[in-house]
């Protein structure tokens, strides 16, 4: 029983960052309809920003997170303006392959700049974990959960309660009509992509210090993000949050009770099962897909 409780606590911490990854991608893949293979690279990028600010510049740990978010935002905006803008209107396969090219180039760039050796980030939190009854959780992971929750709520409010969020939803529902209503759609595309990218960078910056930082760390993160988005339904922010926690739970239980070697297979198995049984996601209203 105590083992199970520990798994639940781990699931909460992991699920928070997964949700962050998922809502970032659901904005880009779900709303903009771009199969974004650079999402994992943005995650890696955020983690390296953390490494640069804390380890190389010797600055405050808590300052590094906003730096990573802003840097991810800027990189996302650059990708949208240089690669996606000229391709607007071309078919989904071409866009996807361009994103694959960008992913290969950027990941190799990270390998070139920072090398393949895994890096770790020192944190200001005490080594000893917080112990409550049978479960223990490190202070760092609690901070990660709190920060992720804050970012998730902020994104939710941004999309659902602000004028910018309303304009975003309108633009991707009907580009022309939104444009006629006075929405500057040329601004909305890069904004949406940049916000999604900054969330990926934030997830990387939060999980980087928990694990280690290396150039390929984003690959699995990207696939997991796709699993979460598919699970929750495209463009569904609440769905992505729930999907993030479901994936975390499946991985924790899979690793704990089946085999730790197959922990990372859970995301893929969920993708296959959901797409075959219920391709609109678990929480969507019924509509035809594909």
């Amino acid at each position: 029983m105590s083992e199970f409780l520990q798994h639940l606590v781990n699931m909460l911490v992991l699920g928070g960052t997964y949700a962050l990854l998922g809502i970032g991608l659901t904005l880009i893949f779900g709303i903009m309809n771009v199969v974004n293979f650079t999402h994992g690279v943005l995650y890696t990028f955020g983690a390296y920003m953390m490494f640069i600010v804390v380890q190389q510049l010797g600055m405050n740990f808590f300052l590094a997170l906003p730096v990573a978010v802003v840097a991810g935002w800027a990189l996302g905006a650059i990708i949208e303006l240089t690669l996606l803008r000229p391709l607007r209107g071309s078919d989904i396969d071409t866009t996807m392959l361009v994103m694959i090219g960008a992913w290969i180039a950027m990941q190799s760039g990270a390998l070139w700049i920072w090398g393949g050796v895994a890096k770790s980030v020192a944190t200001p939190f005490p080594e000893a974990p917080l112990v409550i009854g049978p479960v223990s959780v490190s202070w760092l992971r609690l901070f990660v959960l709190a920060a992720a929750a804050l970012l998730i709520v902020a994104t939710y409010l941004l999309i659902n309660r602000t004028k910018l969020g309303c304009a975003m939803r309108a633009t991707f529902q009907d580009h022309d009509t939104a444009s006629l209503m006075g929405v500057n759609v040329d601004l909305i595309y890069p904004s949406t992509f940049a916000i999604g990218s900054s969330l990926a960078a934030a997830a990387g910056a939060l999980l980087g210090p928990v694990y280690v930082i290396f150039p390929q760390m984003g690959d699995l993160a990207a696939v997991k993000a796709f699993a979460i988005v598919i699970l929750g339904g495209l463009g569904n922010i609440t769905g992505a949050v729930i999907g993030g926690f479901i994936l975390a739970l499946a991985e924790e239980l899979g690793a704990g009770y089946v085999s730790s070697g197959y922990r990372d297979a859970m995301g893929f198995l969920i993708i296959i099962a959901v797409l075959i049984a219920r391709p609109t996601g678990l929480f969507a209203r019924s509509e035809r897909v594909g």
Partner: protein
Amino acid sequence: MKLIATLVSIAALASVPLWLRDPYLMNALITTGIFIIGAMSLNLLLGFTGQLSLGHVAFFGIGAYTSALTSLGFDIGVFGDFHIVHEPWPPIAGFFLAIVVAGLCGYLVGRLSFRVRGAYFVIVTISFAEVVRLVALNWIELTQGPLALNNIRSIAIPLPGLSELVIRTKLHNYYLVLTVAVIAYVLIARLVRSHFGRAMRGLMENETLAVSVGIDVTRTLTLAAVISAAIAGAAGSLYAHYIRIIDPDIFAFINTVTMVIMVISGGKGSLAGPIVGGLIFGLMPVFLRPIMAPEAQWIAYGGVLIVILFLLPRGIVPSFSRLLSKQRGQAPAPDGMAFAKNDAKEPA
């Protein structure tokens, strides 16, 4: 005209070992050739049915592992004490088994994943390849996991009346790969010109319309997936017996991406496309190696992919054949149909 060009190309490729003595270049040509076979099989799906499968390396890897395990033998325990023991078979049997097993996997994956289209199809196929990779990594009893399968024997072809021919040298392997590539090319060319090929292209152009004229979508797509997977399995088998060591990294996503780049840059839906694209991207590392660090080579790789998609979105071969027919004053052939003009007979 087309036939002459094809025969001249084959003769030119067959003559390469006669004047090329550099073993490093020969090695690059053999592995490139193997990947070109994989790319041709991917083109059957991507170029002629319009389905972008990003899990294609799964069939390549399954072919490699099937072939290697058939020739090495294995001993796995199931249900406690019960063991499945397989004695080593001749590698040539592994080659044919690889084709069958990969084709069967293609059938299963096709049946499941053709329920969805577009981005969803892409993600299902990636997921499938990753699950297979994780199985290869974790089922250590069968695959040795990350320790890799070593000392895979070379393919030996039994010759009638003579002793068998062991494909051991680079020269032998080059001609074996070339032979398989030509067979695969002819097979795919005949297939896409058949009734079945027209059904596939009809589906790609307009699925709803194709259904309304009586094309069985699932059957057509599944058959294409089976043939495509079987050819990829053959390529995987050649790879296993040439490199003679395989580990789960064979399932890496970058290998699928390599095949996709070969198809897209050469021109999807063009029979010669994967060969032209394959020769460019397969041999690019050879020429980049002396002037660039390995990481920089990959940056260039991604960069070239983006540039080709921006400048020649239809691919090199279709763009050039369009240019040629314009110069001759002919009307440009519609997409993907250029090769089907002089062969319109209807099989029973």
